[in-house]
């Protein structure tokens, strides 16, 4: 069955530290990959996405992610975090269900990031 694994459930960093959140998925076909972020008290919103082309994608607020097909990974990175990056981050994979179905989105369990000021 398709699945998405996020390696860390909780991460605590100091401001200006570098961030890398791991995400691995299990699906052999064509995928679209996403990172969503949920700031405290706010909606889940899209941070960045990979659809095709350059495997290094840049999103909002200085985040980037690299799609490594051979490793089935889509890790999220930011060189220097800020207190305002405190949020929960969800990795998601959109996989085609086959000729009869549409796309199915599978979410990881999420990683809670806390950035100390």
């Amino acid at each position, binding site marked *: 069955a398709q699945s998405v694994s996020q390696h860390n459930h909780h991460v605590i960093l100091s401001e200006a530290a570098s961030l890398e959140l791991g995400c691995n998925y299990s699906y052999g076909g064509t995928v679209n990959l996403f990172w*969503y972020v949920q700031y405290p008290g706010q*909606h889940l919103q899209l941070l960045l996405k990979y659809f095709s082309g350059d495997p290094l994608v840049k999103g909002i607020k200085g985040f980037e992610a690299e799609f490594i097909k051979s490793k089935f990974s889509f890790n999220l990175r930011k060189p220097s975090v800020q207190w305002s990056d405190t949020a929960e981050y969800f990795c998601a994979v*959109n996989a085609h269900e086959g000729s009869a179905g*549409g796309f199915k*989105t599978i979410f990881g369990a999420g990683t809670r990031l806390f950035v100390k000021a």
Partner: protein
Amino acid sequence: EADIYQTPRYLVIGTGKKITLECSQTMGHDKMYWYQQDPGMELHLIHYSYGVNSTEKGDLSSESTVSRIRTEHFPLTLESARPSHTSQYLCASRGAAAKTYNEQFFGPGTRLTVL
């Protein structure tokens, strides 16, 4: 900012009550979804719809039901709420893949507590 709304935002009710969680979007999206989210857990898909009069059950078994009579409206109903239904319920919608690359837009969620 996404134009997708959920009401109520918070709901505390007693066991056995019938409740309906509302979800509306003004983006004209055909596809809509209901997810259940518990702290520290994956978002679990419980219902989805690909358009008017189309509803399907998701991966996670749920005692709730949904309807899609209008494109913009996708309410979720629990006929008899139980404490095991306590959770956060997220509604989402998605437009045409060519325009939005299958990105889903989420509502603010309804946090349900059943006593």
